[in-house]
């Protein structure tokens, strides 16, 4: 019986390194260790091409090779017969392997030595398990299908984007036993991702940003593909990615650095999964752990499926908010009566808002807040609609892909975390109200 590679993928993650045997044109064998074998699908695997060595020379003249791979839990050994097809030097698979290799290189003391030149794609011609004793594997830590079923059921009951985000993070913790999670949304207009929700960190980091294409999260977003790293690597640390990008940014639209990105200082395992709906990137789900090799292929599969469901649900809730009918402004929200005035300063260049000299937020969310507060001070207006914001020329939303509802959630959460006495709350589909606890003094510039 021919085995399916998807059922033995735990052998490929390199706990016990694989071996590749090749032959040259004259029939001279060669044997080498493999840094990485990547599952592609049931007919293909990819091997990392790092050096132009004897293995490389041999596969170019004799494409059929054999691999020996070992299950690190059961000691079962498998011989794969493969045929080299072609090499990819960019794209999702290449980036997945490049990131994984950076972790392996760091773990094995080979940082700076291992460099992915290509992802060699092989067709699987056969898989054979070698005879011999094997150990009984320990039971899995969780049943992924059950976790996924329960989670998607729970997501389906959410009535708003806020409730959806909270439920999604609850599910990751209670159903998948994942304790360090961030959900970042894609800001297409500004080429970055901003944190909208997180769990497991001392500070939520809501509003913090990471550049598109930088670090595990940014590369996941750019390639719209999951990125999974099993060992700590400085090369993909997001702190460094943020610093590099901030240094390169212009002043007008600099990366958000005043709000630190949450994160484990010593993350050893990282998994970033794209949140996509209708082929459009909405955001990234990021998970991390202090343990080596915490995430496997099954975690990746389950979380990709979870993120797909979450993406459709986010898309649905944003559409619902956009389609809601605008009501006439009734403007009976909470209005301040007395107390010390709160100074709200606005800087138009970056749409930054400061409350009593303390930075709050910038960008689209900053522009939205300034428009709301300006209307409140000028006309005592407290009721607003998503539709109204979209038409408001002061806000300059980048377009239909602006995730307006997500930006309102971001603003609502930043205000709540600051406890500055300015509140936003939903009053219905596509509608929300502003409440202010004390007098405001607005200062432009």
């Amino acid at each position, binding site marked *: 019986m021919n085995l399916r590679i998807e059922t033995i993928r735990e052998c490929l993650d390199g*706990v016990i390194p694989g071996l590749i045997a090749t032959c040259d044109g004259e029939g001279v*064998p*060669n044997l080498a260790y493999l840094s990485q074998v990547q599952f592609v699908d049931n007919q293909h695997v990819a091997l990392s091409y790092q050096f132009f060595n004897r293995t490389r020379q041999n596969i170019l003249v004799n494409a059929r090779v054999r691999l020996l791979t070992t299950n690190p839990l059961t000691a079962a050994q498998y011989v794969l017969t493969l045929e080299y097809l072609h090499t990819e030097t960019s794209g999702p698979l290449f980036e997945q392997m490049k990131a994984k290799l950076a972790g392996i290189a760091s773990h094995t003391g080979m940082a700076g030595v291992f460099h992915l030149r290509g992802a060699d794609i092989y067709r699987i011609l056969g898989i054979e398990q070698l005879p011999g004793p094997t*150990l009984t594997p320990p039971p899995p830590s969780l049943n992924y299908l059950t976790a996924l079923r329960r989670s998607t059921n729970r997501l389906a009951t959410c009535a708003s984007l806020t409730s959806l985000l909270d439920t999604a993070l609850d599910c990751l913790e209670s159903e998948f036993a994942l304790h360090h999670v961030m959900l970042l949304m894609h800001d297409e207009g500004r080429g970055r991702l901003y944190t909208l929700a997180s769990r497991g960190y001392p500070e939520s980091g809501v509003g913090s940003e990471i550049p598109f294409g930088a670090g595990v999260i940014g590369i996941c977003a750019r390639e719209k593909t999951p990125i999974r790293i099993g060992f700590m690597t400085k090369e993909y640390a997001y702190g460094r990615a943020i610093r590099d990008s901030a240094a390169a940014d212009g002043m007008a639209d600099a990366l958000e650095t005043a709000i630190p990105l949450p994160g484990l200082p010593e993350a050893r395992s990282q998994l970033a999964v794209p949140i996509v709906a209708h082929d459009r990137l909405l955001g990234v789900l990021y998970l991390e752990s202090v343990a080596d090799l915490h995430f496997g292929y099954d975690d990746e599969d389950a979380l990709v499926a979870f993120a797909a469901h979450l993406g459709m649900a986010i898309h649905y809730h944003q559409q619902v908010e956009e389609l809601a009918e605008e009501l006439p402004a009734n403007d009976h929200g909470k209005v301040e009566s007395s107390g010390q005035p709160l100074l709200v300063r606005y800087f138009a260049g970056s749409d930054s808002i400061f409350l009593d000299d303390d930075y709050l937020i910038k960008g689209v969310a900053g522009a939205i807040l300034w428009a709301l507060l300006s209307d409140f001070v000028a006309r005592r207006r407290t009721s607003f609609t998503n539709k109204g914001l979209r038409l408001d020329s002061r806000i300059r939303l980048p377009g239909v892909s602006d995730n307006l509802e997500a930006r309102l959630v971001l603003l609502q959460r930043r205000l709540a975390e600051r406890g500055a006495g300015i509140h936003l709350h939903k009053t219905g589909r596509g509608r929300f109200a502003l409440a202010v606890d004390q007098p405001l003094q607005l200062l432009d510039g």
Partner: protein
Amino acid sequence: MLDADNAAFIQTSVSISLATCGVDHLPNLMRAVGCKLLDGGRRVGIFLNATLAPALLADIRTNRRVACVFCLPSSNRTLQLKGEDAEVLPFDPADLPLIAEHLADFVVEVAPEGVPESVVRTLFAYRPDALVMVAFSPCAAFSQTPGPRAGQSIGGTP
């Protein structure tokens, strides 16, 4: 061919694996359970579990070509030896202590890598009556320690 340093190296707690080439130019490979030096270091004997690799032993009997890799996991130091005169010989039970000692050393070597003893013992389980020795004279040697000098010939005809 095998200098004193490498001769000593292959007798440390290294992982040992062997590959051959079939008549159809399709390779075969397997792990070995130990090794010893023969003929004053001019030949190397590799101990194999014959039940795991009938095709590999058939290749040796056909063309006598082998590639053998020795790797020390803790340092990544890796050496490949090639031979063109390999032969499959009966196993001498007097060499059993060599294998036992090698496996015990290897258990200690890979424990920091997170590989438990039970896995090592299962992976290298053998019945003494199933063992054979493949003996060959190294005709080429290559350093395969990852890095800029990986693959460099350190003796013989590449």
